């Protein structure tokens, strides 16, 4: 057989379009319900090392103690620790939808008891980079109650507040 040049063969399309059901679990479900119903942030604090887990989880990552039901209320205000601005189109892996732009994302230390943790990655309302500062005070802005669906996105963004 001659080794003649073959016409191109395109890559084979053989995708599998599968969707999974991702459970939030008991701890996160409780916290999401609290956000949905009462617009309240319910974190959990490690009874031993006092680390605050947001979202709440079954054991403390640091000392492996059970967190039990040591709930603590966090927020709704917090302090901006760090922030970034996405300049590229981002694909939402939940839907495959391309988000051309999105507001600045920030890590926010929610108000609450002393202890490491209680940080949340969320969006800021403020889009002017010059106005975003470390230590800036912000407050969570919830969707109207009837639009809340028990998701982290029930909080639309954090709004700058003067104190």
């Amino acid at each position, binding site marked *: *057989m001659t080794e003649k040049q*073959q*016409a*191109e*063969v*395109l*890559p*084979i*399309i*053989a*995708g*599998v*379009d*599968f*969707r*999974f*059901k*991702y*459970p*939030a*679990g*008991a*701890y*996160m*479900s*409780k916290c*999401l*319900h609290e956000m949905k119903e009462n617009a309240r942030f319910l974190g959990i604090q490690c009874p031993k090392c006092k680390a605050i887990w947001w979202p709440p989880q*079954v054991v403390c990552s640091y000392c492996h103690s059970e967190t*039990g*039901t040591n709930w603590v209320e966090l927020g709704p205000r917090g302090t901006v620790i760090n922030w970034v601005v996405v300049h590229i189109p981002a*694909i939402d*892996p*939940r*839907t*495959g939808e391309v988000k051309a732009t999105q507001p600045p994302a920030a890590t926010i230390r929610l108000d609450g008891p002393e202890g490491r943790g209680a940080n949340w990655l969320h969006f800021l309302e403020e889009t002017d980079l010059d106005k975003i500062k470390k230590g800036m005070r912000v407050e969570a802005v919830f969707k109207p109650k009837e639009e809340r669906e*028990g*998701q982290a996105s029930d909080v639309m963004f954090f709004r700058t507040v003067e104190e």
Partner: protein
Amino acid sequence: MFYPKELEEVEPIWEEQPAAVSGSDIAYDVGRIGTKFFAELRDNKKILGIRCPVCNLVYVPPRLSCKNCFTELKEWVEVGDIGTLLTYTVVYVPGENQPFGPPYAIGLIQLDGADTGLMHVIGETDFEKLSVGMRLGAVFSEERDGSIRDIKYFKPL
């Protein structure tokens, strides 16, 4: 009840999402060996195998490396489009990437001149009449785009 009561009794929240975008509509490069195999199938309705000179085996589908002796394979051979059924099944439930709606039969067909079986669909057949050892011949698709489905199915001879 493993967890505290208030947690065990909370109404569970779950969300359905795609597993990962990269896996959902991906195209896979066939490589130069696959290109030769699929192009020959598409352009000339020929099925190629590749021979290991050390083990003296003809592999269909062709591959780069002999799994027994790790020899890099280069010797292309044309195999027949007629072969013997090694095993088969009839699939009754719907699934992903099925070439036909269920029920349909698939089997491993050892083509004349090959030492391995090729996985493919068995068409134009009464499921009751299928039997291991029967002879089957390839039916090629009218429109071929360079994939294993350029063979439409194998039919009993």
